[in-house]
């Protein structure tokens, strides 16, 4: 049985004038960590809300743990954990009170499922008497994850758990998810950070309400059409302008300390011609190397039409 299925799910707002999710179809296998990758406004949160039975879809069917999101909404609510993008715990309850509250409404106790949250909870336990509203961003996130797990859900929904979280805390968070996965929990997680996609078993790229690609992270980047080059010179600011003006350039974007360049056509003499052009423009310490595309390269490539 699949943990989650979506079949042509559509969601609109404002009496149909805003199309938030456009016939989204995908499946999450049992025990899988599945990533929904896309920028703000892509439709990620709407999909989460339909699957967690907080919104009714306008069309299509979806199931969670084999249960229908419309007919069986009560049963679904009992067996899923949901961590919304916005911090939604009780700010004026302490860490421990929040956790106990969520355990109680799911007819369980902290003690019963402590093993599941132990690794995470020990990190915030020193602050268990502190009110949730007074916690740091990283600690709030850990508490929210504990509260979403305390009734031992079969499917876990994490909507942008790492947005606004620094790079080190993000790595820690994904380590926690890895441990949960080893316990057999299916996870649907969304993120706008493309580098986090590599940590999922499979990912769906989403933009403008449409699912654009579904595959493993490794296979996703293999679908990048043509070759990609990293270009560096001593004047990066000028390099970007010169590369964008070059007649053979299909696209050029900055990626950290280099420019990622693709050509309109793959030709043997692409590199020698480009080198001559850039040298004539006065560029020094020129480096041009063919590289493997990353998720962000691929995402830019398949959304470029939409972005003009």
């Amino acid at each position, binding site marked *: 049985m699949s943990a989650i299925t979506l079949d042509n799910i559509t969601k609109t707002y404002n009496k149909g004038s805003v199309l938030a999710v456009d016939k989204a179809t995908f499946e999450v296998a049992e025990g899988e960590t599945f990533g929904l990758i*896309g*920028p*703000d*406004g*892509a439709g990620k949160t709407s999909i989460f809300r339909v699957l967690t039975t907080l919104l009714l879809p306008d069309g299509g069917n979806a199931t969670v743990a084999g249960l229908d999101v419309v007919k069986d909404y009560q049963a679904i609510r009992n067996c899923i954990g949901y961590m919304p993008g916005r911090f939604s715990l009780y700010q004026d309850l302490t860490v421990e009170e929040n956790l106990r509250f969520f355990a109680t409404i799911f007819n369980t106790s902290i003690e019963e499922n402590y093993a599941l949250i132990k690794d995470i909870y020990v990190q915030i336990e020193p602050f268990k008497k502190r009110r949730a509203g007074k916690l*740091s*961003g*990283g*600690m709030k996130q850990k508490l929210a994850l504990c509260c979403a797990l305390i009734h031992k859900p079969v499917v876990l929904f994490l909507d*942008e758990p790492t*947005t*606004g*979280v*620094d*790079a*080190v*805390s993000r*790595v820690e968070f994904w380590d926690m998810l890895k441990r949960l996965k080893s316990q057999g929990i299916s996870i649907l997680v969304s993120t*706008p*950070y*493309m580098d986090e996609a590599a940590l999922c078993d499979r990912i769906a790229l989403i*933009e403008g309400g449409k699912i654009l690609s579904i595959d493993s992270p490794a296979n996703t980047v293999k679908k990048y059409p043509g070759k990609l080059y990293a270009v560096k010179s001593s004047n990066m*600011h000028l390099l970007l302008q010169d590369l964008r003006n070059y007649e053979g350039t299909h696209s050029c*974007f*900055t*990626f*950290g*300390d280099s420019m990622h360049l693709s050509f309109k056509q793959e030709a043997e003499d692409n590199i020698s011609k480009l080198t001559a052009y850039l040298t004539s423009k006065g560029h020094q310490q020129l480096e041009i190397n063919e590289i493997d595309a990353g998720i*962000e390269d691929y*995402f*830019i490539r398949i*959304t*470029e039409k939409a*972005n003009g």
Partner: protein
Amino acid sequence: MDNIAIKAEKLTKRFDDFVAVDAITFDVKQGEIFGFVGANGAGKTTAMRILCGLSKPTSGTAMVAGYDVYKDPEKIKKVIGYMSQKFSLYDDLTVMENITFYAGIYGLSDKDIKKRGQALLDQLGIGHEAKTFVSSLPLGWKQKLAFSVAIIHEPKIVFLDEPTGGVDPVTRRQFWDLIYAAADRGITVFVTTHYMDEAEYCNRVSIMVDGRIDAFDTPSNLKKRFSVNSMNEVFYQLARGAKRKAD
């Protein structure tokens, strides 16, 4: 002094016995793109609030655009621009109304507001959206508009607090094109980000850990010093030693 936009010496902020900002010393040159990086809770926001004239330091000194943060916070506010990730524009005002509102607050004349407002719309290519409510703009447009509004009064320094969080990859890069254009005009850009590839785009970067500035240099020098290939690895090496996680 002329070409120094910000100069902080042993700048410190305490909240009771908690040292949020711990004797930081750095300088930012006029026209520089300065990356202010650090883990959640490292003290970035507190330091930034002092530099914007919103909070008084406990000790140490700081000059912003030639003004003392103790004596002249009101003068500082007039010559800087500020943009935050969370709030920057009024959703229930139109694009043009937002421009007029902010430009008016910064004391631009009606004539200048009209002229600069139009130039801004042209530069962003959203002239046809002048009467659109900001609430219905895509996030990427909002952020680009918010940045342009933050510098409509041609401030000496603009402070950007995580301006690109959650923005799509193409818009994120277009946003940096705007930053470069502003820096080319001589505006000093002070920017915080959690995207470490963006740290590479800065002229110099400071990395805060537990209230201190533990590294402060150009991205290429920092990478050399830590013998790594990316700013992400530099950050990871420094920040994983952090003791506190507050924000």
